[in-house]
């Protein structure tokens, strides 16, 4: 397990560095940020002072070197916009997105499993058609439009929910999660339904039925575990894009998350914050991918890395035993 983790960490280090380097260079190619941060009639002296203060007058290789040296000491630079430490801003924004994305995905997975399985029980039956239809609508609907519609109906017209913001207990979560939920549920329900149909048609399911297992037990105990792998892949993918920032929902509902922070720092050419945000998000995605791999292993014993390696201490002693018996 630890060998496996070590290997994955090393494998991911290089892409991580490449991503940050890429963002570093690309961001600086987009134009002179001094025009954004200095008044329009700033003099040339002011522009060169600004450049000197922020290290933009150095060649890009030097800037990169300085930045990576800083990163090794956990200094991710300062925001051009606010003057705060980039790390502080990013670490402050990330939990808000994590809460939103995490809660949404858990609900999405549960709902998709229930709805997808129900649809798969009788392929092309009424339940199946209804679910497929709504799933496709849900996957296709634009979240911007849905969010505004939700606010208009539930907040303004009916007055049941707050329009936006993060103050107010459970009710502030309803609209953002409902908006974010639709597409994952739509996509996942279809995936679950598809792989459940395949699994439920397998011979061992018939065997289980003939041995007297009830519908519930067949679905939960036998079928789901085998149908889960494709759903896990897609769920992981969807979570990644949500962790990347539910930008639209965060912007509309005033949720202080990392998606909004990233978009704002791109538009404002706030390089340090952008780099820190990308680094943190990339790290989160890397952790998520490991968790997904471990999830496969948990679901399917055949996939477990330790059994395959044949290099672990237990396997070695087994070999010795086998050799001793010869």
């Amino acid at each position: 397990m630890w060998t496996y983790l070590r290997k994955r960490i090393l494998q991911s280090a290089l892409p991580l560095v490449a991503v940050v380097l890429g963002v570093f260079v690309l961001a600086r190619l987009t134009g002179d940020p001094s025009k954004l941060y200095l008044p329009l009639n700033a003099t040339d002296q002011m522009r060169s002072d600004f450049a000197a203060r922020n290290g933009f007058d150095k060649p890009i290789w030097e800037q990169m070197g300085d930045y990576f040296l800083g990163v090794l000491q956990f200094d991710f630079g300062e925001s051009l916009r606010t003057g705060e430490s980039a790390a502080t801003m990013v670490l402050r924004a990330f939990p808000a997105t994590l809460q939103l994305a995490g809660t949404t995905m858990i609900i999405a997975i549960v709902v998709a499993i229930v709805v997808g399985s129900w649809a798969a029980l009788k392929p092309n039956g009424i339940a199946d058609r209804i679910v497929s239809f709504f799933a496709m609508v849900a996957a296709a609907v634009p979240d911007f439009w849905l969010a505004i519609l939700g606010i208009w109906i539930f907040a303004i017209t009916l007055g049941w929910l707050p329009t936006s913001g993060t103050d107010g207990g459970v009710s502030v979560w309803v609209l953002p999660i409902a908006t974010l939920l639709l597409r994952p549920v739509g996509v996942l329900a279809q995936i679950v339904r598809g792989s459940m149909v395949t699994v439920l048609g397998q011979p061992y399911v018939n065997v289980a039925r003939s041995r007297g297992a009830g519908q519930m037990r067949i679905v939960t105990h036998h079928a789901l575990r085998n149908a889960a792998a494709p759903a896990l892949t897609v769920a992981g993918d969807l979570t990644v894009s949500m962790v990347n920032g539910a930008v639209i929902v965060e912007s509309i509902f005033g949720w202080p998350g990392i998606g909004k922070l990233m978009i704002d720092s791109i538009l404002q050419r706030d390089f340090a914050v952008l780099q820190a945000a990308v680094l943190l998000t990339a790290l989160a995605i890397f952790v998520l991918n490991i968790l997904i791999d471990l999830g496969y292993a948990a679901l399917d014993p055949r996939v477990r890395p330790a059994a395959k390696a044949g290099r672990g201490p237990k396997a070695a002693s087994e070999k010795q035993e086998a050799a001793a018996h010869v």
Partner: protein
Amino acid sequence: MKISSPQHRAKRISMSIAAVASFAMLASCSVANSEPEAGGGDAGTDDTLTVVLTQEPPTLEACDANLTSTGVVVRSTVTEPLIERNPTTGDLEPLLATDWEQTGDTEWTFTMREDVTFQDGTPFDAAAAAHSIDRAVNGDLGCDVEGYIFGDDDLEVEAVDETTLTVTTPAPDPILPLKLSFIEIVSADTPADEMAREPVGTGPYAIAEWQAGTSITLDRDEDYWDAAPEFAHVEYQWRSEGTVRAAMVTSGEADIALGLSPEDGAGDLGVSYPNNETIALRFSGQTAPLDDIRIRQAINYAIDKDTIVSSLYPDGDKVAAELIPEGIVGYNDSLEPWPYDLDKAKALVEEAKADGTPVDEKILMPVRTAQFPKVSELGEVLREQISQAGLNIELRMVDTTQHLQYQTKPFVTDEGPIAMLIQHGNQAGDAQFSVEQYMLTGAAQAEFGDPELDELIKAAAKLTGDERQAAYEEVFQYEHDNVVALAPIAHQTVMLALSDRVTYEPNSSTGDELRIKEVSLAG
């Protein structure tokens, strides 16, 4: 018969843990970094005014207060300047300074108001004023107000005694008091070598809490020197979507929402008001064919400004003849806007063509996305109208940073002739700030110039009173007749929403400084 193996047990335990964890997360139900309030976003608490802005202020540092997103919270609410410009009359009114006069060619003397304390208890006096001015203008902080108002000039400040301050300028400056109205006075304890994100001022409200990403709360300062404002607290929130800002007011979650457009759905609660912004096209007059004055005139004749205003901006925008609106010192009210005359435009283009001007050269028109409502529609209309005159013009929508590459020095010189859409707001109230940015040869936003116009501009800056007014009027007239560096389009209006609970009269400065002490409970 179920066999409960250790593996099954482990699996069930781990699934139960996962389930409990997710319920715990849901149940904790408070968003990271925010504290759920007992009242839950209810603007109904009589003593709290809730204002929703377009974005979170990047900082509340007082020396950056000329930045709209900072000033809207800070100016005249948390901090105050020595002198305040009345946005309606244009007059300078005493605030922390009760009196002022020019006591030398380059020297002004100000009398400080007595019995004023900062929100941290320290006394306000000439030394504190000197410290604030020195810090903002002469220091190395890179304060925005320094660049915006004072350029490279430094001021010599001296606190002669507790209530007397002298300010000496490098050259005679008749509008120094107006310039000083941009410097917010902060406590003498404010460090001069670092920015203060949450300043201490003399204003009616002190900063109570800044929940990053979520809200800013101000508490009324009970020791404020002037009449106490009505609300005990002010809470600022921000939403980037105009429809959501309007929705917060219509649903009662907020009292004031700024930066709205008519489509945002504020309905009867929306109030339109002129905001000092003027839109125009600015020409790169050194690149053919825009170096031919006939082409620049043709573009002015080709734009049907009346139709643009009546169809895109019917809520109060006015056709513009010059870069500044009424109410700014130097506004020339006898200058007529360029009339819409397509035939004349075509004739001028033909004439220029016959003389060898390359009228088929593609002119680029950069327009900033989301700069103001319906900006892309405006871009399309302009492109269409200018093409009808026989010119080859391309519309390019760009984001803020790209737009700024075209807008300020060093300009973009390798993309051919450029006629870009600019939006200029004269916050200061004096034409000097506009003409010295856009018309003076070599200025930050002037692509070309005219030596005679430069002389007129420089002479006007030295005058005061009626002479100053007349001199700047002449500047605009001359520019219109002989230079045509711009094609003015319209003076703009903007909208805010006010809940039924409050009364407030917006004015042209509202977007730059929302003076909470001017907001009161309705009825």
